[in-house]
């Protein structure tokens, strides 16, 4: 024992698959919405709601299917993504069901459409399709690097998806925003799917071009400016997102795409100048559009001073409508306070139109209070954190960029929606992922979680053991 012994050994940990942790968390994530359901029923009618068993079993069934598929086909995947998404989806179902019970919304629907149909069963069906999409992604996408082959095809597909609502006869103008297409009896929001496809294009493109974008640049006023020809793609994306903004009246989607591109550019090139330029271009675009398009103008007015604009706006105008919504939303958040009024006991149905889709976060704010809002933001934050963690752990640059782009887009969407509802930025028509009512959003976000789980499975899978060396076997030694 003469040698120095106070030393350390560093050894690799064998990565456990953690599927049982995921199962336990999933059980928890299914139990919470059932509790919430019971709470709403007791608060509204004073009795256990009749549909509780059905919804609970339905959610549990979906969660079980998803878990078994992950266990079989992505055994090393991140254990948190699936339970977090399940909890958010389940809570969304409960909140939508709660708003279905509101007499105000029922009478509003009867007045405007002649009949009322509850949204919760539809949302349950969309969740089932979403889980099917998740399963499909895991089954068909055995290796995320396959997507790299479709870089430019995804660009075309994304542009087509984005422009589909402008096609006459196919696109429909719903309340000022042309972001829907109608096929058969279904309306689809292609922008939600374009988000995923565009992330594939950006990662494939930037993986190839990042050196040109990062290194071939001139220094100007402390910023690295890239060459003109490398600027082409960012200018194109900027122009496309502005076009969407102008022709489809969709502030949120264009912000989302442009922001996602800037995030991925920054991650790929490590150049701060891209962020500065991106922000400047976004501000310039927003100012130009904000001062010309009337749809955006009313949103900006409602954002700056909703109570004042409610008084001054002409009766029945678009602007009065936007301001009325905004004031109701702010009142909702305000009356929730720290601990909230309790599930089923708030008055967030006063928001009336889109209370269960764009403004569902106001119901969270009123009935669960600041405490509940923080939980939901944390749940979203954890999904984003796991996405970025996956990106850090991924071994291939394409997977890194894709995971980063998808989590960045997810984060931006949360920021745009939550910020808009809370009055931090002008309101845009986007949906809170998993929480809000809407088929396209739920399905596309389940696909997003599926891709993240696939990348994290590849990233966390232990490296294969080195192949045995044929030279080392039973060679005769000739000693000198």
């Amino acid at each position, binding site marked *: 024992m003469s040698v120095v*012994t106070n030393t*350390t*050994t560093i*050894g690799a940990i064998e990565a456990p698959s953690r599927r049982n942790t995921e199962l336990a*968390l999933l059980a928890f994530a299914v139990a919470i919405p059932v509790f919430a359901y019971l*709470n709403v029923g007791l608060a509204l009618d004073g009795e256990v709601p009749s549909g509780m068993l059905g919804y609970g079993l339905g959610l549990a069934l979906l969660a079980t299917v998803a878990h078994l598929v992950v266990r079989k086909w992505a055994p090393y995947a991140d254990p948190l993504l699936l339970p977090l998404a399940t909890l958010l989806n389940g809570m969304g179902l409960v909140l939508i069901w709660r708003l279905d019970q509101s007499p105000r919304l029922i009478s509003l629907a009867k007045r405007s459409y002649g009949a009322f149909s509850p949204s919760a069963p539809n949302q349950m069906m969309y969740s089932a399709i979403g889980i099917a999409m998740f399963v499909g992604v895991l089954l068909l996408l055995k290796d995320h690097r396959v997507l790299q082959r479709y870089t430019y095809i995804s660009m075309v597909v994304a542009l087509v998806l984005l422009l589909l609502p402008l096609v006459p006869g196919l696109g429909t103008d719903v309340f000022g925003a042309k972001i829907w297409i109608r096929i058969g009896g279904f309306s689809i929001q292609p922008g939600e799917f374009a988000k995923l496809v565009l992330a594939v294009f950006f990662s494939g493109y930037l993986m190839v071009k990042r050196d040109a974008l990062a290194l071939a640049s001139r220094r100007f006023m402390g910023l690295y400016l890239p060459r003109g020809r490398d600027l082409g793609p960012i200018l194109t994306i900027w122009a496309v997102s502005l076009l969407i903004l102008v022709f489809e009246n969709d502030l949120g989607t264009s912000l989302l795409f442009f922001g996602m591109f800037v995030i991925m550019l920054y991650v790929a090139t490590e150049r701060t100048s891209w962020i500065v330029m991106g922000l400047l271009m976004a501000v310039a675009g927003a100012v130009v559009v904000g001062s010309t398009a009337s749809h955006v103008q009313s949103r900006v007015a409602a954002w700056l001073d909703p109570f004042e604009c409610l008084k001054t706006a002409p009766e029945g105008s678009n602007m009065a409508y936007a301001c009325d919504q905004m004031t109701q939303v702010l009142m909702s958040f305000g009356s929730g306070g720290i601990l909230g009024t309790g599930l089923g006991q708030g008055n967030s149905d006063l928001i009336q139109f889109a209370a269960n889709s764009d403004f569902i976060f106001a119901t969270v704010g009123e009935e669960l209070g600041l405490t509940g809002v923080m*939980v939901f933001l944390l749940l979203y934050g954890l999904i984003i954190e796991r996405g970025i963690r996956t990106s850090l752990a991924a071994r291939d640059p394409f997977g890194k960029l894709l995971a980063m782009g998808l989590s960045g887009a997810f984060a931006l969407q949360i920021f745009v929606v939550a910020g808009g509802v809370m009055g931090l930025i002008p309101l845009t028509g986007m949906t809170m992922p998993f929480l809000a009512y809407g088929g396209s959003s739920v399905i596309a976000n389940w696909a997003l979680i599926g891709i993240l789980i696939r990348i994290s499975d590849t990233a966390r899978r232990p490296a294969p053991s080195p192949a045995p060396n044929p030279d080392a076997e039973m060679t005769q030694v000739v*000693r000198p």
Partner: protein
Amino acid sequence: MSELTLTVMRLGFLAVLWLFVIVAVQVIRSDLFGTRVTQRGSRRQEARPQQSGRQQAAPPQQRGAQQAPQPAGGGRSRRGAPTKLVVSEGTLTGTTVALQGQTITLGRAHDSTIVLDDDYASSRHARIYPDRDGQWIVEDLGSTNGTYLDRTRLTTPTPIPLGAPIRIGKTVIELRK
């Protein structure tokens, strides 16, 4: 439904939501994958009573294995069997690794058990492992510059005598009791 029940449910629900977040964060904490740093050596074993708290944190099989090399630990460990691997020359001089039946990999690859910072070492240079009888074997993994036991270059997996120097580039390691 009474006001009291509803208030309790409302607060209980918020508590359950937060509990979920806390559990999720705990999972993240236990899931930070990377490398495990383990304190080894006799100095720590002498100081065992003071450090019992930290010992509890180590995985059980490791604790059992660290106790086994104690000379007073009874006849359970084979007599004459090496209990640790010591680096006796090179930049890592003084490093010891307790032999617990695990395979020890040597090389420049950063996931090796002993990471060699040596221009003459390959990324996966050699490995040392126990065979079925507990005899320690060294095997060259197709390295460029070879692994030497005493003065002979290894071509096949070879049993290691106690105290025999294994040379990899400028690094010399040996097994000791």
